[in-house]
C-alpha cells in the first residue's frame, strides 16, 4: 500500500491532506463526523487579538462550481482561542496549525506570541492574504516589502515553524513567495481566495457590503494549480497547495505541480467527511498508478 507521508522538512505528516483555515472551524466541530487523527494536520480558523463578529450578511454566494465568501474572520480572539485549542488537542494527536491574522504588524506579533507558548500548537500559518477584512481586498501579501517585513517580524518572535499563506491576487506571485522565503518562512501555502465581485442588478448594488469577496471551490482549481506550480518553481522551501481540491486525483496533480502537501477548503463545508474521502482516494490512486511515495512525483512534471 502506498506511503502517504508528506515531508515538510521541519515536520513529517502522515498524509498530505490538511483542512484549510476558515473551512474547518476549530477542528472539534468535525469530531462527530470522523477521527481527526486521520488527517495530516488541520488549520484552525484565523484569529486576531480580540474577538470579532465578522462582516454584515450576506456572507456567501454560490457561483458555478464555486463559492464567494465575505465572512470577515469572525472569531473569539487569541486568548479566547487558547482554551479551544487545549480542548481539541486533548482529543487528537494530529498536528494543529493556527492561522494568525492581524490588522497591523503589532497585532500579528501579539497573536503569534500568545500561540507561540502553547505546546498544543504545532505550527503557525501567517495569514497575510485575507481578502475580506480591509477595503478593496488589500493585504500585506500584495507587496514584496510588506510580506518581507511581516514575515521577518513574526519569524524572529516565534519558535514555531512558520507557514506563510499567500494571495493569488498579485501580478507576480514568485517575487512575493521569494520575499517570504528570504524573510525566513518555513513553508508557503497558496492560494487564499481569488477576489471576485457579485452584483445585484435589481438593486444596482454589490451583493457584499465589503464589495469584493473571495472565490473558492472547484471553480478555482486550474488557477490555483498554475500558481502552485509557479511558486514551487520559485522557492526551495515546501509549498502547500490550496485551491478547489475535491478528489484524490486533484491532490496528486498539486503534488505533481510541486506541492509537498495540500489543503482542502470549500469541500469541508460542502461535504464534512470530504477530507477523509480525499485521503482514501489519494491512496487508492497511488496504488493504481504504482506510486509508492509522494516524493516520486512531487515536482516531477514532464514538460
Amino acid at each position, binding site marked *: 500500500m502506498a506511503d502517504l507521508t508528506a515531508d515538510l522538512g521541519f515536520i513529517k505528516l502522515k498524509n498530505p491532506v490538511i483542512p484549510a483555515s*476558515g*473551512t*474547518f*472551524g476549530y477542528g472539534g*466541530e*468535525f469530531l*462527530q*463526523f470522523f477521527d481527526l487523527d486521520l488527517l495530516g494536520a488541520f488549520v484552525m*480558523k484565523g484569529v486576531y487579538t480580540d474577538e470579532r*463578529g*465578522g462582516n454584515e*450578511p*450576506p*456572507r*456567501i454566494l*454560490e457561483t*458555478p*462550481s*464555486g*463559492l464567494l*465568501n465575505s*465572512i470577515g474572520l*469572525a472569531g473569539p480572539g487569541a486568548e479566547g482561542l487558547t482554551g479551544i485549542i487545549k480542548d481539541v488537542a486533548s482529543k487528537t494527536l494530529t498536528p494543529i496549525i493556527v492561522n494568525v491574522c492581524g490588522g497591523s504588524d503589532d497585532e500579528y506579533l501579539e497573536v503569534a506570541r500568545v500561540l507561540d507558548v502553547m505546546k498544543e500548537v504545532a505550527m503557525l500559518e501567517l495569514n497575510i492574504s485575507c481578502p475580506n477584512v480591509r477595503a478593496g481586498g488589500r493585504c500585506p501579501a500584495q507587496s514584496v516589502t510588506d510580506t518581507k517585513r511581516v514575515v521577518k517580524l513574526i519569524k524572529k518572535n516565534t519558535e514555531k515553524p512558520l507557514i506563510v499563506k499567500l494571495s493569488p491576487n498579485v501580478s507576480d506571485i514568485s517575487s512575493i513567495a521569494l520575499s517570504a522565503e528570504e524573510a525566513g518562512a518555513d513553508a508557503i501555502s497558496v492560494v487564499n481566495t481569488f477576489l471576485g465581485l457579485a452584483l445585484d442588478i435589481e438593486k444596482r448594488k454589490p451583493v457584499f457590503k465589503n464589495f469584493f469577496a473571495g472565490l473558492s*471551490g*472547484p*471553480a478555482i482549481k486550474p488557477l490555483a494549480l498554475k500558481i502552485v506550480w509557479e511558486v514551487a518553481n520559485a522557492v526551495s522551501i515546501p509549498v502547500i497547495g490550496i485551491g478547489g481540491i*475535491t478528489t484524490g486525483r486533484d491532490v496528486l496533480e498539486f503534488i505533481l505541480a510541486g506541492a509537498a502537501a495540500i489543503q482542502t477548503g*470549500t469541500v*469541508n*463545508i*460542502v*461535504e*464534512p*467527511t470530504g477530507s477523509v474521502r480525499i485521503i482514501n482516494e489519494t491512496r487508492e490512486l497511488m496504488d493504481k498508478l504504482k506510486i509508492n511515495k509522494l516524493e516520486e512525483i512531487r515536482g516531477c512534471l514532464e514538460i
Partner: protein
Amino acid sequence: MKEEECRVSANTVLQGRYYMMKLESEYISEKSEPGNFVMIAVSGSHDPLLKRPFGIFKTDPPYFYIYYEVVGRGSKLMALKKEGEQVMVVGPLGNSFPKYENENILIVGGGRGIAPLYFALEKYTGSNNISLIYGARSKDDLLFTEKLKKFPLKETAFYTDDGSGFTKGFVTSDIKQIIVRNGINVTFSCGPDKMFESLNKEIGNFNIRNFVSLEAFMGCGFGICYSCVVKGSDGKYKKVCSDGPVFRMEEIKWQT
C-alpha cells in the same frame, strides 16, 4: 449528526410547487427532534455546490420526511429526484423546540414553515394542550389543513392573505385573543421573516416563552462557515444552523 447516503423512497408533488420527499435513514429518523433539519445534496456534481437545508416534517423510522416548496434552483433539482435514487444527507442538524409537558402551547406556522411545527405537533400533542394558527398566501399554499384538524387541538385558526378558502388575514390577526382564551404560556413559530417581525410586534412583550425557528441560506449547516448569521439582541451574530435554528424570540434583534 452524520453524513450518509440516503435512499429516496418517494418524492411526490402534493400541490402546485409543494413536494414531499420520503428518505430512508435509520440514524436520522431515530435521532431527529422537532426543529432539526438536514442538509441535502441536490446535485451529484459541483454545481450547485452547496447542500440545501430542509426542516424535518416528520419521522417514521427508518424514514423521515421533507416538505418543501420549489422556489429556486436547488429545490427545483430536489423535485427531480426519483424513487430509488441515493442522495447525500448531513443530519440531523441544529437544536430543537424544547420538550414541554402540561403546557398550553400555541403553534404558529406561516407557509412552508409548517414543516418543523407539524413534527412538533406529532411529538408533543399527547403531553400538552396545543392550539394552532396557520396561514399562507392563498389556499394553494396552505397544505395539510385536514390532517392538522385531526390532532387533538384546543383551538385552530387558518388564514390566507387573499381570503381564498379560509379566513382572510394573517397569523397575527387574532393571536392576542387566542393566547388569552387558551391561557397560552409557550409559542413555537416558523415562517417567513416578515411573519416573525409581526409576531414580535404583537406578542414580543407578552410574558410568555416565545420560540422561533428561523430559515436561512446556509453554507455548511453545522457551524463552521459562519455564513448564516443573524444579529442577536446583544449585538452579536448568531449562527442559525448551530446556535439555532430555534431561538427565544428575545434573543434576536428584529427590524421593528
